[in-house]
């Protein structure tokens, strides 16, 4: 063994030097990479804070745009390093603390992005319902508009029934269905009374119809409640970051 070591002393020293170099490279390069990821996480926090602030200020379009941008941010695991980073963290407590701080930030980031994403999906799905409700806007300049208005209500109901929405929007969808059904029912009663020349039934149906249109406001009330709930979740997430 001694002879071997004497004969290959240079080789052994070379190998040891190589190992030291590899270790040093792993140490510094790994550390540099992890530090970069810590910095990127901090930058992401700033970006999220900035977008969150924008989502609470300005016009509706700007708020929703910020929210959409926030919801689109990647939820990748920035703080997770390679195996040697874990090894470094066991050796150097400072790096371990930095890594833990990074993970804590990342968890909050993910919560904000998820909350923004859910709020964004809520707004997107609710906008679909609102779009179908616009069919109920009556153009009374058109000839025979009462018949058209009833058909428009039937189309609106069919469309609202046909869309898939996130669970938070379901109460809005249900309220919309109920209110449109009430309008269609009142239109039917009005047409039936008209066919029978039944004045009492006609006037009653007319009053019911007016009420049914006025009652559409209940959808907005349901929407306000559901969206407030969603926004509170988002607010809680953004306040924590």
């Amino acid at each position, binding site marked *: 063994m001694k002879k071997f070591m004497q004969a290959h002393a240079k080789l052994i020293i070379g190998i040891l030097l190589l190992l030291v170099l590899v270790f040093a490279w792993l140490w510094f390069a790994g550390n540099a990479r992890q530090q970069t990821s810590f910095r990127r996480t901090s930058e992401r926090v700033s970006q999220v804070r900035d977008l969150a*602030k924008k989502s*609470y200020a300005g016009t509706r379009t700007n708020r929703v745009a910020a929210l959409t941008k926030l919801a689109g941010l990647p939820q990748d695991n920035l703080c997770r390093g390679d195996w040697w980073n874990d090894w470094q963290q066991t050796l150097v407590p400072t790096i371990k603390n930095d890594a833990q701080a990074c993970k804590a930030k990342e968890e909050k980031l993910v919560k904000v992005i998820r909350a923004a994403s859910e709020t964004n999906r809520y707004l997107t799905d609710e906008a679909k319902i*609102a779009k179908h409700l616009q069919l109920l806007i009556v153009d*009374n300049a058109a000839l025979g508009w009462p018949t058209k208005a009833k058909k428009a209500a039937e189309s609106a109901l069919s469309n609202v029934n046909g869309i898939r929405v996130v669970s938070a929007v379901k109460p*809005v969808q249900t309220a919309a269905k109920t209110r449109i059904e009430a309008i269609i029912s009142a239109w039917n009663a009005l047409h039936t009374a008209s066919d029978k020349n039944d004045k009492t039934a*006609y006037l009653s149906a007319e009053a019911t119809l*007016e009420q049914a249109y006025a009652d*559409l406001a209940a959808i907005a009330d349901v929407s306000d409640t559901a969206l407030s709930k969603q*926004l509170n979740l988002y607010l809680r997430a953004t306040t924590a970051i």
Partner: protein
Amino acid sequence: MYSNIMRKIALAAGCIGLISGLIFLTPYVVQAEGAANPADYSTMRETIVAIKLPDIPQPDWLKQQLAAEAAAQAAAHKAASTVTVTYDVMTKGAVYASLSEFKLQANQTLNDPRGWSRMNVKFVEVASGGRFTLVLAEASQLPTFSSGCSSDYSCRAGRYVVINQDRWMGATSSWNSAGGSLRDYRHMVVNHETGHWLGHGHQDCKGAGQPAPVMQQQSIDLQGCKFNPWPLSSELMSSQLGI
């Protein structure tokens, strides 16, 4: 001494911490206010506010029904707003005719549904102070009411609606020869003279064979018309009563 200094340091640190906390938390308090309003994010309420039901055009059958009802209501309202006209009764000269019969029949005529009462006027006899005075007068007394009044016929002079006793008791020869009844003549003469008080002048026959206007001088000349004791629909108005 040492613990006193430490206490002051701790107090200062606490104050600094509290102020720092307030400074850092302030933006999030603003955020909370901004997040509370769903209208800042959703267009739902605006969409719904834009949906309104215009006035529905009424079908023709309903218009007709409502018009009929409105007319009935107007008629009922009109009936409800009946004008009451009071009158008192007196005699002048030597009157031998039954005054009670005169009063009764004159009142029946005035309030007959075929007569002036169709204007929603109710004639009520009062003891005195009526809006006009119905007089049963001896024929010779007629000219005393007005120079335009003749002892041959009945007359109206100012507030006096004067019925000639001779005509009341015997109508006119032309009326009688045409087969008119005395009761109809009495209807006619009371309606005609009261018509003057209501504001009407004389009228002519509107066409041969048609019923004569009550304001036509039917006792003198029918002009081809038929005897008619009652005012025609076209005569139902009164400048005196504003009807």
